[in-house]
């Protein structure tokens, strides 16, 4: 089914990688040609990241050969791979927050002056790389001061510096909004036309179809096949990926259930004039039982910061908060939790996972913290709880004692979701909960959210994927420039309407 167009720049044959007892990859073949964008597809834990890491020398395969540019190689690590023209953006943002943006982009290929770093040239060059990505930030600012999405873009900038023959992007778009994605694709296409071979991982099928030329599908560490994108209908692709038919996806289509809210209902959470200097302008918001409120906005528009103020993760300077009609002070996440408010951070690595603990411990962490240390949850109850979430969310490997750090990105995300669901909150604030989650699981999660709302839970849903927000929300609050600019009914809203609001009232 594959046609031989050009000699492959990367040719991996029979690759196996083991993390006893898990067999993460089992005899996988993979071929990447110059001048193509090649999508690597598969469910969470299918082995995509592992394949990439096997290529760049982070994991050494137990079997198989890797040929790069006609020479058989085993890279000793990313530095080595980079030196041979293979640049990679790994799944989690792997940059140094304490360094400046310019350093993060240029280190390793830095301009020199008299043997030392040439700072001003470095900033200049960094700025031009940023510009190409459509990013307008100060190269001298420290990376940590930027949101995750910006960091992700910076990571991509870094990968495109220097002469790379192969560019690997492991879920680069999971935290980007449409705008940024469009930019990224422009850059990718330019590079492709220059002859660079691009490996691209994403769980967004529309993106795959938009940008890729060819795809390889993995399932459970095994190779399913290599296809030309144009020849493979989405339904079939999904079937290849999950080994089942498309029905799961369709189930999610009609999740939204509109129940009329009584006019005199007390909001579960009501905030008036809540704001914080330098973060979000004062805003009002009411959240009712059984309702999903979506937050829409561009990257950096302040959705995350709004969510953090709602849930005590950041302390508000001004404004009032009422929980079920009674004034409440949510100064810490713990205080919010005691009012039944839960928050999942978008920053999975920094503020979510406790990667040295097991899946079980991560799932019960919040619940246990709320009970206090003195009263441990009975072991039986813990095991049941954990087992049920592993099943419900399809966490893999289904081993409660696995260390979280050994789970694939998407599975870590599911564990975090389980942590908060386990506390049975009244209000659940989900910041990018579907980031990096595969199509099947994403549908499951959307369905879950809808079900929870139907059972009376109030949910705030933030996602970079506007479509998802539209589909799932009863009401949508639109953010722009750290300000809440509009609130619209989710049922009637159309994509264009929201995009207009986001972009500033139809600027174009």
């Amino acid at each position, binding site marked *: 089914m594959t046609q031989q167009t050009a000699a492959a720049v990367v040719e991996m044959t029979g690759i196996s990688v083991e993390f006893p007892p898990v067999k993460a990859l089992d005899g996988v073949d993979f071929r990447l040609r110059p001048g193509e964008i090649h999508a690597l597809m598969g469910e969470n834990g299918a082995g995509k990241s592992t394949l990439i890491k096997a290529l760049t020398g982070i994991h050494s395969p137990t079997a198989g050969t890797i040929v790069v540019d006609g020479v058989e190689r085993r890279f000793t690590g990313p530095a080595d791979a*980079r030196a041979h023209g293979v640049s990679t953006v790994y799944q989690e943002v792997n*940059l140094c927050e*304490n360094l400046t943006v310019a350093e993060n982009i240029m280190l390793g290929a830095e301009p020199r002056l008299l043997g030392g*770093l040439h700072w001003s040239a470095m900033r200049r060059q960094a700025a031009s790389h940023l510009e190409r990505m459509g990013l307008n930030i100060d190269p001298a*600012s420290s990376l940590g001061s930027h949101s995750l999405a910006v960091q992700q873009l910076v990571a991509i900038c870094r990968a495109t510096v220097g002469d790379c023959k192969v560019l690997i992007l492991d879920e680069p778009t999971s935290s980007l909004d449409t705008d940024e994605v*469009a930019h990224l694709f422009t850059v990718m296409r330019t590079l492709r036309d220059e002859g660079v071979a691009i490996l691209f991982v994403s769980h967004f099928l529309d993106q795959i179809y938009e940008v890729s030329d060819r795809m390889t599908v993995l399932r459970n560490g095994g190779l399913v096949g290599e296809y030309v994108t144009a020849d493979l209908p989405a339904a079939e692709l999904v079937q290849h990926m999950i080994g089942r038919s498309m029905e799961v996806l369709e189930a999610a289509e009609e999740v939204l259930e509109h129940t009329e809210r009584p006019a005199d209902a007390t909001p579960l959470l009501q905030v008036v004039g809540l704001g914080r200097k330098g973060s979000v302008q004062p805003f009002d918001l009411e959240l009712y039982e059984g309702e999903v409120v979506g937050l829409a906005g561009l990257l950096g528009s302040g959705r995350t910061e709004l969510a953090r103020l709602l849930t005590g993760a950041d302390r508000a300077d001004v404004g009032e908060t009422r929980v079920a009609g009674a004034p409440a002070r949510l100064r810490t996440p713990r205080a919010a939790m005691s009012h039944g408010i839960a928050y999942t951070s978008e920053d999975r690595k920094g503020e979510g996972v406790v990667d040295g603990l097991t899946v079980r411990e991560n799932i019960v962490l919040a619940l246990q913290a709320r009970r206090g240390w003195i009263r441990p949850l009975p072991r039986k109850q813990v095991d049941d709880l954990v087992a049920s979430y592993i099943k419900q969310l399809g966490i893999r490997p289904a081993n409660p004692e696995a260390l979280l750090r050994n789970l694939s990105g998407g599975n870590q995300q599911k564990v975090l979701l389980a942590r908060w669901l386990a506390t049975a909150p009244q209000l659940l604030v989900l910041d990018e909960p579907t980031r990096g989650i595969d199509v099947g699981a994403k549908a499951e999660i959307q369905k879950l959210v809808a079900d929870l709302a139907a059972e009376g839970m109030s949910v705030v849903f933030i996602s970079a994927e506007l479509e998802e927000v539209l589909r799932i929300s009863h009401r949508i609050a639109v953010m722009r420039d750290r300000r809440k600019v509009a609130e619209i009914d989710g049922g009637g809203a159309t994509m264009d309407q929201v995009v207009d609001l986001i972009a500033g009232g139809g600027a174009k």
Partner: protein
Amino acid sequence: MATSAPVRASRSLKIPTRLDRRYLPVVGTFVVLALMLIVGGTRYENFLTPAVVSNLFINNAHLIVLAVGMTFVILTGGIDLSVGSVLALSTVVTAALLQAGLPPAVVIPLAVGAGTVIGLAHGVMVHYFQVQPFVATLAGMFFARGLCFLIAPESIAINNASFGELASWVQIFGGWRMSSGVLIALVVVGLGFLVLHFTRFGRTVYAIGGGEQSALLMGLPVARTKVLAYVVSGTCAGLGGLLFAMYSRSGYSLTGVAMELDAIAAVVIGGTLLTGGTGFVLGSVLGVLVLGLIQTIITFEGTLSSWWTKIVIGVLLLIFVALQRILTLRRT
């Protein structure tokens, strides 16, 4: 799908009008140091004189060098507990070899090189065997001290004429004095600064402290850099030993007991985070001066019993750290 750039125009980061947050701790230390000097000046006669300030540097030249090396290691997120012992080893080697009649031109590289070798061993243990830095360098600390005893259980005086000349070289400007030790220390500080800020090695040191995993995935030479950081620290300890030998004109195996704590304290007071990734050599120099100033104040006070000396050192340390903390907090 493809809406484009203009909407993003408003999102460019605002130009920082205030001081970069990263410099706050250093500035904090500087302010507190200045305050302390002023308070001391009004409290004690002859305190705020060029002689006292010069002595502050002369007495602490070796510690400055140690702190510079320690800064490298701490910036990578590690720690080097061996510097006190390595300093002693270097002084003992210097004294013993000079006594044996070798010329300084041979002795000096050997003494400094002893530190380099131990630093290399630390780096290899820490990086390639993944021994925790604390333990690897603790073992190094015992090891170097043990070598000291083997080489010379008793203290050895240095009578070598040319070494003495080198050691006693002093430049005087008005009331200010600058010894050869201070000059070397300042050169080391300058080099440390240049290396950290103007070489890839230096920036990689910061990158490793910011996240070793990330630095690695960024394709930076983590292994080499980490090992080199310990080599720098070991070399600085060796050089510090040489300075101490010049300062005390002798080699003694019990020199520098617990001096590693002084070096670490200086680095941390100077605003470097022990978790790595943030800090400056110049901050560490200020940290050393703070510790030196505490000693000076104690001597000027002149009435403190042994125990009050300890308590006052603790209290002054607390005041420094707390003030620095407050200065830093209020700005953020």
